[in-house]
């Protein structure tokens, strides 16, 4: 008799494992960033890698984001596959030129002759009172600027597969991990932050959304930690006899518009949930996609739950009120069905 145990990992350990697998197989892969060596990454994405690969390939940098992200671009142009960590996405302000004017545009300027295979990892998201310079998601900002893929895993399985796909991709990939899905010991976590992760290498294709819950009355489209808020809301809606489908986009660039349209055609109602700021962002883009592709199928105006257009506040009641919550999603979902 044999027993098979399905191995479980936290999202954070799944990311570190993906990097280790690719570093083992490909000598051109290396990691640099602040506190990614001895510390293992403030959010653990490089845990254990220094011991395995040494300081030549796991490189702690000074606090010098323009310098080391620009250096990642230069290394990538010259045949390397750097993974470079911007500790919090909020820090993009000190180095955005290297990201969007340089990393994202060189392939285009070169008419396709120069490849820039950088993976820019960065921690996103709030909910733990870190205030307005350490709590943003900003994926809409990055997705708006052409030339970078943008991926946001919501669970350990996807985190590993998307990281392997990102490292193997010949394009710049901004890999955003939400602190609330990492399974960190020092932060309240979603229970789904630990999950089954196969050993060995596999890819989750960048640009393919995932139906994480089937439903028939309503589609909730979301990404990152809000996938879990939406799943919790879907369970609550079930008790009100509302069957909600939850679509985890997993990538914003490329955006899986077909999956959005297909789900809306099936359920006829759309709610978009986004932890990023409401205006000019993901919610507007997803709703437009549904209107362009499934207008005649819609039984109610699409709606959205997002962070209002305000900096993320510090105090717990303020922040909790501002970020998308299960209650707000349930309320918006219920209203969509009343509106029929």
């Amino acid at each position, binding site marked *: 008799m044999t027993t098979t145990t399905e191995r479980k990992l936290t999202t954070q350990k799944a990311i570190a494992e993906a990097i280790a697998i690719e570093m083992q197989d490909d000598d051109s892969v290396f990691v640099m960033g602040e506190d990614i060596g001895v510390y293992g990454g403030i959010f653990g994405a490089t845990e254990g890698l220094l011991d395995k690969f040494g300081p030549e390939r796991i490189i702690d940098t000074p606090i010098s984001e*323009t310098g080391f992200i620009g250096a990642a671009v230069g290394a990538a142009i*010259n045949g390397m596959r750097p993974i470079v960590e911007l500790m919090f996405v909020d820090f993009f302000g000190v180095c955005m030129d*290297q990201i969007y004017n340089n990393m994202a545009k060189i392939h285009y300027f070169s008419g396709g002759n120069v490849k820039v295979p950088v993976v820019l990892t960065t921690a996103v998201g709030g909910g733990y009172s870190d205030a307005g310079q350490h709590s943003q998601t900003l994926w809409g900002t990055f997705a708006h600027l052409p030339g970078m893929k943008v991926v946001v895993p919501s669970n350990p399985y996807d985190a590993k597969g998307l990281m392997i796909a990102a490292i193997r991709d*010949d394009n710049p990939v901004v890999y955003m991990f939400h602190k609330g899905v990492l399974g960190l010991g020092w932060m309240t976590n979603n229970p789904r932050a630990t999950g089954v992760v196969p050993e060995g290498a596999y890819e989750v294709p960048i640009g*393919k959304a995932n139906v994480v819950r089937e439903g028939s009355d309503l589609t909730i489209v979301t990404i990152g930690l809000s996938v879990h808020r939406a799943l919790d809301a879907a369970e609550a809606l079930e008790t009100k006899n509302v069957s909600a489908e939850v679509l985890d986009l997993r990538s914003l660039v490329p955006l899986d518009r077909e999956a959005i349209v297909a789900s809306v055609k099936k359920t006829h109602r759309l709610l978009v949930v986004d932890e990023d700021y409401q205006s000019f962002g993901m919610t507007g883009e997803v709703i437009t996609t549904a209107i362009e592709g499934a207008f005649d199928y819609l039984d109610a105006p699409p709606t959205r739950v997002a962070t209002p257009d305000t900096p993320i506040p510090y105090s717990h009641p303020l922040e909790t009120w501002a970020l998308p919550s299960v209650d707000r999603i349930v309320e918006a979902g219920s209203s969509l069905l009343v509106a029929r």
Partner: protein
Amino acid sequence: MDIPKEHLVDMYETMVKIRRFEERIRELYFADKLPAFDIAAGLIPGEMHLAAGQEPVAVGMRPHLKAGDAITATHRPHHLAIAQGVDLNKMAAEIFGRETGLGRGKGGHMHLYSVEPNFGCSGIIGEGIPVAVGAAMAFRHRKTDNVALSYFGEGAANQGAFHESLNLAALWNLPVVFVCEDNAYAISVPKTASTAIPDNSDRASAYGIPGVLVATNDPVAVYEVMGEAIARARRGDGPSLIEIKTDRLWGHFEGDADAYRSDEFKTDMNERDPLATFGKRLIDEAILNEADIASIQDAMYAEVEAALEFAMNSPYPAPESALEDVFAGRIVQL
């Protein structure tokens, strides 16, 4: 001059080629924009930053280069691209916005990228400096003895990217040569009004690396200093910072009234034109004679004309190809 004759001749030939290229681009740039200057009109639209006068900076490093060495340059890149041997036809075609250009018409004159030779430039001040640091990281990882040369103006030496890059390269002892092309003006602002110390080469001491000032716009002096800095980087002894006092003979961009530089300054500058000065010196020292110079001019002018003809006879890209080359490879879905 204790320099092999073939290097002196090569430097002079390249200076002639660069100057001719810049002069012809200038003529063609204005030919169809006058009498009423319209920046978007004509064969070459947009901003145009020409490097006439800065040739010594470029040709002085040229004999020291090896295949695979990387150069990152600025918004004023032609002299360096030509000196490194970037394909002149493709470079000209890119400037004219043609399909056959280095970037298929997507970059233009501030965004010239070449894989072989290994050249890139950028329209953002200081942006290329960290890129050279990364190139050097790749060279060291691959255990080659290639070096990365980062060129930037004296205006860029007040950018954070400059200081961050010097720190990183010094900290990690990387094979980078940082070269400041000091033409004394950041558009209209003189260095005296922008920089707290006279010589950026002195800033090297803040990072514990050699800093060398080349005080004259002389290709031989550049050759000597760059030879030492490149050799040092190649043998693994780390980065250097070189500042070269040079002259931008024309405006910041074509169409610049250049009223911020005095007539006296411009007269002095034109009198020390490095092309004329170097040519005279080669004759005086019997390295070349008048006939040699004439035949060098004929050959270089012909090469430049051929490149310009290639460019102007090349097709424009199909408009919808604007959508291509945003990403490499197959995209799952757009």
